[in-house]
């Protein structure tokens, strides 16, 4: 008996899309009534027998699996992507927006101590790096973001990060009006205090009115 190719297609799509192995009862429930499910399964199993993916039965249920001899191709994939903790994402964001920034300043801005390892992790990932030292007592190290950071998030330059106004406009930042302006002023002040550290700091001075000759 030959199998209708359209029945094979349906079975194939269902098995491919299923989030778990399917038993015959679930297949029957999902497919049109006129399909001979056992015969179609058998035809599909044969069609996939020599292929990179096989139709196999596990615990009585049907599923598509990588052919055993090709498993080696997948084994490279042991590197599981990990998620960053909220503290780490926030530290990264503060570093990006306030750079160059010292550890103490990050803690002050977040209002909570930075656990050991958060900065280390971001340094290890390569998204932040030491940028210089602050000209204050103790000469603490300042941190900033790296080119890898820009590459990962798809920004060309750090000034492409949306500003506070734009975060608000996009709805990401819900406004709490009274202090936001002062907050902004504070960030600005913190930035400008930095100018002394930066090699390009002198450039700022050119903004000052030039002598009129």
């Amino acid at each position: 008996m030959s199998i209708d190719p359209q029945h094979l297609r349906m079975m194939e799509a269902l098995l491919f899309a299923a989030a778990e192995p399917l038993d015959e009862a679930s297949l029957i429930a999902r497919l049109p009534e006129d399909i001979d499910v056992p015969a179609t399964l058998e035809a599909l199993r044969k069609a996939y027998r020599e292929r990179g993916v096989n139709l196999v039965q596990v615990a009585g249920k049907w599923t598509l699996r990588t052919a055993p001899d090709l498993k080696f191709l997948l084994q490279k994939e042991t590197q599981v992507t990990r998620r960053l903790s909220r503290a780490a994402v926030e530290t990264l964001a503060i570093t990006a927006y306030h750079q160059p920034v010292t550890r103490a300043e990050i803690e002050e801005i977040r209002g909570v101590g930075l656990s050991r390892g958060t900065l280390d992790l971001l340094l290890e990932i390569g998204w932040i790096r030491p940028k210089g030292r602050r000209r204050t007592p103790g000469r603490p190290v300042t941190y900033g973001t790296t080119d890898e950071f820009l590459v990962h998030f798809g920004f060309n330059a750090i000034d492409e990060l949306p500003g506070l106004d734009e975060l608000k406009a996009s709805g990401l930042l819900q406004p709490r009006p009274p202090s936001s302006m002062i907050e902004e002023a504070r960030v600005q002040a913190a930035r400008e205090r930095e100018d002394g550290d930066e090699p390009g700091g002198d450039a700022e001075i050119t903004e000052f009115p030039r002598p009129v000759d």
Partner: protein
Amino acid sequence: MVVDIDGYEGPLDLLLVLARSQKVDLTRISILQLAEQYLAFIAQARRLSIEVAADYLVMAAWLAYLKSRLLLPEVEDEDVPTGPELAAHLSFQLQRLRAMREAGVRIMDRDRLGRDVIQRGQPEGVRIIRNSIYEVSVFEFLRAYAGHRARAANEPLSIAARELYSVEQAHERLRRVLGDLPGWERLETFLPPEIKGSVLYRSAVSAMLGAGLEMAKEGQVELRQAQTFGPIYMRRKRPGQSTPDEV
């Protein structure tokens, strides 16, 4: 009769709906007639004491202007757009909005992943090769900062101390360096060379001016500024010299 002004997504939307009643292609619509229809709609809404949002009133005022420009013969004036130019702009806006709307519907009607087409239900784990094994999206990143700022805004305000140059420091410096400079010198010349950073620099200039004015009052220096926002010059006052005419 029900006038539901709330149901429209802005004045352009209302205009698009009105335009349909002309039963011609949007590209060949009479903008003059459309303006009339819009103005009649708004007038009717106001007669019925229906609150009309400001956006709609601004459009009404603009359309009344457009109407007057269209009814008058064209006047050549480089600076003011002609009536037809204004009409073309409105027609353009309407066509563009309708085109975007239709495009939106067409995009939404596509075979969408997870709804119409499904990817492998049980992926075994091949992912694209990335530089980083840590996954953070732009959205998560921006939300983290926005969330932090929203929380920070609720906390008691603390204003960070700023590093500024004081009038006392300026005063002291002026006393020291003034003797070395015989003639008129720009105020900025008197600043210590290590001053950098725009805020610190600006504070130093204003501190220097404050100290200079104080010393001028004491009769020790003279100040001169030739024009508003022009550079300020300062020199040591010599005995017997007249007071400067411009301060």
